[in-house]
């Protein structure tokens, strides 16, 4: 597990309280609106996302920057590579 702190993000996707597998569907749609090199912050309270999102990034050719644990959710950071 890769942890980060005070990671800059260009946009945020709030998936707290949203059901699985939304964490694998919406990041792709959101990243499509960003430019290459920009960072997306994904907020989720779903534990499964901690494994799923890094794996999804690898599969889709995006860069997973790391995780930060917040008071009521996880923050996952994805850098758009393509």
């Amino acid at each position, binding site marked *: 597990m890769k942890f980060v702190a005070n990671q800059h993000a260009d946009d945020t996707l*709030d*998936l*707290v*309280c*949203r*059901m*699985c*597998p*939304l964490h694998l*569907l919406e990041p792709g749609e959101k990243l499509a609106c960003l430019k290459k090199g920009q960072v997306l912050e994904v907020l989720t309270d779903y534990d499964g996302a901690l494994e799923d999102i890094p794996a999804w990034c690898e599969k889709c050719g995006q860069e997973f920057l790391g995780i930060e644990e917040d*008071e*009521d959710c996880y923050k996952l950071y994805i850098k758009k590579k393509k």
Partner: protein
Amino acid sequence: MEQVYLDHASATPVRKAVLEAMLPYFGERFANPSTVYDMGSKVKQAMEEQREKVAGLIGAKGKEIIFTSSGAEANNLAIKGVALAHRKKGNHIIISSIEHHSVLNAARFFERMDYEVTFLPVDAFGMVNPEQLREAIRKETVLVSVMHANNEIGTIEPIPEISAVCKEKGVLLHTDAVATVGNIAVNVDDLGVDLLTLSGVSFGAPKGTGALYFRGGLRLMPLIQGGIQESGRRGGTENIPGIIGLGKAAELAVEELPANMKHARELRDRIISGIRKRVEQVKLTGHPENRLPGHASFCVAAIEGEALIFMLSREGIYANTGSACASKALKTSPVLVAIGTEAALAQGSIVFTLAPNNNADEISYLLEKFPPVVERLRAMSPIWKEQTAA
């Protein structure tokens, strides 16, 4: 006259155009909207078009609409979804004391847990006082829920003023707009609400249809765990024919609302003035001016509302004693109690709710039949005999 239906708060007939729009979705367009092949994606596209239409009826965006099975489900989703998702902020909910059972009982559900619920009083017309709300809000308050209009007494609540207080205090506001959406102009921005409930049964869509508006970005805990349906906020394959019907009814409501409101107001005013003129000791319940255009409600002294409904139905006139959910309970309406109606008088509650298909002849028929029915019931009433003797 064969049948005069004046209970549209309980149910409205499904409009012909609505039914016609729905029919293909019981037949050849049956595919599941979550599937990836074109049969399914076409259904999904049709569903998303209805979401825009429903959103358009209340000045919202399509992505802010969750389709539900009813107004009751939408009310539950609003109360439970917010209370659970925002538990870390606090454990206090405020609702008015005249809410529909689906709000009232959803809030009471939390009283059994570690939440507190404040029931706001209303005045003699059923109006919530925004200043009393201000005093009731605490730092633990997560949600305020006040209905847009009451289905039993027709009073329209001062939601923009209530919203101003909630915004000042940083508290989310939900309104149950089942009685208003499709019947009067409703705009979520003008009202200033964060969540709003609507029901298709109020405006010519089939039963089993409803929606919850939630302001973009608001966290909401799902009630029904499932998959990707409704963007991961409500599990279960969507009721596509119902959603198509809801969208069509919303589209028609947008087009017809101004004319329908004027028509309903004229008929309502005839009922109110006609009954007051023809029957003594009848009290109009709810606000005299700030009320739904198609809503006339009364308490008739010295008789039972249920008997009145039964006798009227024998003349082909269909009305109600209060809310459809509570009328069979033979219990004094909590709404009438909350507005301070004397217990004996509250027994004689009767509610007429109109729709665009009602006409002036039907109202004339009601005004002809209503006084003799009341007279017959009062002739059997010991209370009436005591009152007249005194």
